[in-house]
């Protein structure tokens, strides 16, 4: 181990986040007709910061070392609807469809970065 730990960079973790976003949007689309369902979305910036991890700084060796604080948020936020529905549902299909399209494109972009990394590593290993 060691050599390839960081070979794929942030993209490996980014792919998992992208996947979660597609999943969350699919949940919104599934619940488009559920009374009182509140549409949710992921804050990518917050999530990726959480993945990186944040620890408290210690200025003395007597200070207690804290575990990573980064994952206290799962980055889930509720969507603010343009128009409120009488059944309390905040899924707006047009918004969800647009976001779903974007999330899919994001997923494929991350996938492309991964592919490039892998083909780069492969080229380096082959050495030709």
């Amino acid at each position, binding site marked *: 181990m060691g050599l390839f730990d960081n070979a794929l960079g942030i993209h490996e973790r980014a792919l998992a986040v992208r996947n979660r976003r*597609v999943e969350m949007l*699919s949940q919104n689309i599934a619940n488009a007709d559920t009374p009182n369902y509140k549409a949710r979305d992921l804050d990518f910036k917050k999530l990726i910061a959480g993945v990186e991890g944040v620890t408290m700084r210690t200025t003395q060796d007597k200070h207690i070392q804290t575990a990573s604080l980064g994952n206290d948020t799962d980055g889930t936020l509720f969507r603010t609807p343009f128009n409120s529905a009488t059944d309390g549902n905040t899924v707006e299909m047009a918004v969800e469809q647009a976001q779903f399209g974007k999330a899919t494109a994001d997923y494929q972009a991350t996938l492309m970065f991964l*592919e490039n990394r892998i*083909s780069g590593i492969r080229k380096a290993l082959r050495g030709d």
Partner: protein
Amino acid sequence: MIDNIFGVAGTALHAQLTRMNLTASNLANQNTTAPTEDGAFKAKRSVFKALMQQSDTHAGAQYVGGVRVANIVDLQNPNPRVYEPGSPNADKDGYVYMSNVNEVTEMVEMMAAARAYQNNVEVVNTAKALMMKTLEVTKA
């Protein structure tokens, strides 16, 4: 993980299909008559519920974030009373009670269900395409 997307969309397809079935049943029973208002056909509507945590799920719908049909309710608008003395269902004054199905609302309901169904089919297709692309990373 991607398995859950298929699951969630699957629960929605099932729920929307139930809704469509109810519309079909409502339209089929539109012209039924009965001698009493209680006995007359009432239009049925499904009420959906989100599966927000593990305790909401059951064997038929086990994906958190999905949806299920919580219950099916009768529409409460009154059944029209029509004078039809020749009908075998007529009461002693010659009136029958029709179903309270409104075909226009049912058509709208059917279209809404069909559109929602199509949305979820699209989710499945997209998730499948992404899955295939992810598998191809190994070939890069």
